[in-house]
């Protein structure tokens, strides 16, 4: 089952006609692959899917959930967290409040990683944590903060690298126990964030493509990692504009390891390692 450009156009315009979702500026290679996967997983052809979407709004919502990619990890890419710890977060050390937005937070591991880091830097109490995703299923998981232990086992290593060790000073070692932030139950195969962690963030459904800032607040830091790779160049620029206008001056923008601002918005930010700072 090979999806043609025409099929893809038909799919995009069908979704657009029955909902507010606009996939027309998604990266076409990824979108084709995702659509193909949805069809294969449900053993249906494109016409059947489109007919079902036309008749039932819930099918549109489910299709949107199914085509989004939800890869995330605790402390994914430790070098980024080292940068946050040593060069980005210290800039806000004396702020009365620190507003942070995780745009495209998926199942929330990054949100909780950030909270752990903030707490270790004595900044968590002053932080307001906002997190959003287009996919309501992953948001539910994020709100509960309960994960499969064995899927997250490998990433405890990252916790050690970011929280326990200091890359700038190898003699320093903070033996922070995991239980300070989450409980591990090997029998039940769960890793559950503590109640004080789960209670704090504000999670909201949000579509970066069609909605602006829904949090009625500007931000000191925006993290949006491995989200814009699914958008084409034009749409990426639109998202950079949204981020730029909702960051405070000198606010930080953290993208994925292989994402960058290539277009006209590049000169509105300064580079800070892998990250960007609004000029």
């Amino acid at each position, binding site marked *: 089952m090979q999806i043609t450009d025409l099929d893809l156009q038909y799919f995009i315009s069908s979704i657009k006609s029955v909902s507010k979702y606009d996939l027309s500026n998604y*990266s076409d290679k990824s979108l084709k692959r995702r659509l193909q996967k949805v069809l294969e997983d449900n053993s249906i052809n494109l016409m059947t899917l489109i007919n079902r979407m036309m008749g039932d709004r819930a099918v549109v919502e489910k299709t949107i959930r199914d085509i989004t990619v939800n890869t995330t990890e605790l402390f994914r890419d430790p070098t980024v967290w080292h940068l946050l710890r040593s060069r980005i977060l210290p800039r806000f050390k004396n702020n009365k409040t620190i507003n942070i937005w995780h745009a495209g937070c998926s199942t929330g591991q990054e949100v909780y990683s950030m909270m752990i880091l903030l707490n270790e830097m004595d900044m968590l109490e002053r932080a307001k944590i906002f997190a959003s995703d287009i996919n309501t299923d992953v948001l539910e998981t994020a709100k509960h903060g309960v994960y499969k232990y064995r899927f997250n086992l490998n990433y405890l290593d990252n916790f050690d690298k970011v929280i326990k060790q200091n890359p700038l000073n190898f003699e320093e070692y903070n033996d922070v126990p995991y239980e300070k932030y989450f409980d591990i139950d090997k029998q039940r195969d769960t890793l559950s964030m503590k109640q004080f962690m789960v209670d704090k963030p504000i999670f909201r459904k949000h579509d970066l493509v069609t909605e602006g800032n829904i949090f009625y607040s500007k931000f000191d830091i925006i993290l949006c990692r491995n989200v814009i*790779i699914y958008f084409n160049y034009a749409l990426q620029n639109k998202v950079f504009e949204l981020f730029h206008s909702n960051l405070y001056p000198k606010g930080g923008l953290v993208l994925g390891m292989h994402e960058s601002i290539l277009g006209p918005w590049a000169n509105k930010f300064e580079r800070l390692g892998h990250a960007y700072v609004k000029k």
Partner: protein
Amino acid sequence: MYKAVIIGGSAGSFQVITRILSSMPPNFPLPVLLCLHRLKHVRSGFVEALSIKSTLPVIEPMDKEQIKPGRAYLAPANYHMYVELGNKIALSTEEVVNHSRPSIDLSFITAAQIYREKLIGIILSGANRDGAYGLKKVKDHGGIAIVQNPAECQVKTMTETSLKMTPVDHIFNTNDIIKYLQKVK
């Protein structure tokens, strides 16, 4: 006359790819796309290791980076690497394919769709079947399909699966791959 070379490799391909990169003409007229399996946790050091002997600059590209001739683009660890319209790289963190991210199949399939008959696909030593279907797609679109001689491979699975799946243009030892690439225009 060609627009790109794409090379896929896994277990046992590191030395082969190093030899190929060290023998490329410095003014090679095409981009070289590299999709090589590696340990997920080894995220740094690989591009440096390949760069040491390479005559072409080896780059782990950013998403939407423009693809330019005379450069080698290495699929970054833990991302799938696609080729998109406008001759750009696109990255993705979708689920693993054939137990792999990056998946050689995905890189080959998308490159074949963009470059069609102007693509040269090469499959090297490897321990799984990732890449075999991708090479078939290169061939289906009229491109050139090359596999490393299984007899020379440290691990034959990838090349043998490729040969079962599609009739290839050449079965080459490393030296012949190098000679072939010297003449590519």
